[in-house]
């Protein structure tokens, strides 16, 4: 996770724009992951990643609507280049033939990462409204973690096999 944001100077409009960008980035990453899984014939993980992409899109739209109500069409000052992997799972979290459990664990790790981002930013915030928004977003990440954990709990018990159990040692050609 990386950002180039001066949190002390963040206005409410910037903060909302930032939150929308974070959700957009996560949505796109989940869509990419779903496409990778579909391409590699792993439909269960693909379905879960599509679900996550849908959730991120929904949250992003809610935030965009709030931003629009408060600030109309004012030009944003924060850009996508200022954030990286805040709520989006890391590129290398995707794996060939991921089980639904692995997919959900990747999503859970991303929700934990996003929570850590908002927690870490809070001490630097000066604007009370921005602080309130970040606290709200932080708490939402906890809720998302609970939802993913609930999905994980519905899965049948783990087989205990790891990827290494399916890999051959290199052999001379």
């Amino acid at each position, binding site marked *: 996770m*990386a950002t180039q944001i001066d949190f002390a100077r963040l206005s409410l409009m910037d903060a909302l724009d930032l939150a929308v960008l974070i959700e957009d980035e996560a949505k796109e990453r989940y869509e990419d992951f779903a496409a990778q899984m579909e*391409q*590699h014939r792993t439909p269960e993980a693909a379905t879960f990643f599509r679900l996550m992409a849908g959730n991120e899109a929904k949250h992003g739209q809610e935030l965009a609507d709030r931003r629009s109500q408060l600030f109309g069409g004012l030009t944003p000052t924060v*850009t996508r280049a200022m954030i990286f992997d805040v709520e989006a799972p890391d*590129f*290398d979290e*995707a794996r060939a033939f991921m089980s639904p459990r692995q997919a959900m664990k990747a999503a859970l790790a991303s929700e934990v990462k996003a929570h850590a981002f908002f927690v870490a930013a809070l001490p630097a915030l000066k604007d009370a409204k921005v602080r309130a928004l970040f606290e709200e977003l932080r708490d939402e990440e906890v809720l998302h973690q609970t939802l993913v954990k609930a999905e994980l709990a519905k899965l049948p018990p783990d087989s205990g096999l790891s990827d290494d159990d399916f890999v051959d040692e290199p*052999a001379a050609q």
Partner: protein
Amino acid sequence: MSATCEFQAKDYKSDLKPIWCPGCGDYSVVQGIYRALAAIGRPPHEVAFISGIGCSSRIPGYTTAYGFNTVHGRALPIAQGIKLANPDLLVLAAGGDGDGFSIGGGHIAHLIRRNIDITYIVMDNQIYGLTKGQLSPTSQKGRTTCTSPYGSLENPVNPLLYVLAYGAGFVAQASPTDLAGMASTIEEAIRYPGFAFVNVQSPCVTYGEEAQQIKGLKAISESLAAMGHDPADRLAAMNLAQQYGQKMHLGVFYRNPEPPTTYDALVRERQALLAKDALPKERILDLFIKK
């Protein structure tokens, strides 16, 4: 990066779905290229993206630019021909470490000495991934692969030092550990007027070693800008480049502060000069026919 450019990253994304292994570093490289191209703002039809053979060489197909997935190791000569034939095109070349430093290793020196305005992005994963994990020119000594079952006896090529030694005017390194940094590095390389080289440490999730995966790379990453490195200092760049394989320095190693005239510009000048005394097209045969 500019927030007001006319094109967005998605404008450079084609409908073709990548078939790289899930988790491959190349997914982030193509994202970095989309972002860099959007920041440059040239329409896709003014961009030509040339590659060789290998996993990473599939990349032109995933963009909306004109693309040519050529033959193994030959991305650079073909990119050079395209640039000379149509100097107005923004020409990118890409490939893996094997394509660039083994099969096509002889071409880099000549593009560098000619200083053709091409940006060459090497996705360095230290392995031949497409053919299922053979030793590549940047594989570490001692590496066990299917072609080195007892461990490699060879020293790896150092791509950064290689291109710096031949006199490349722009040399940088990026990695999927910092996508925003990668995008701005590629953007800077494209903006450099001359041959620009970007080595991207792009992990192979299937045949790469654990230490070469993103989490491992994060542990050895260091930003050249944060270190206070002066990219105009070529000797300092060469000194830092020697740490390839131990440290992963990210950003611009070297940018020639006084870029020389590019070969494509010199060719244009020469053509303009010769055109004055050139025979008209209908009299060209006169040069070969004795009267």
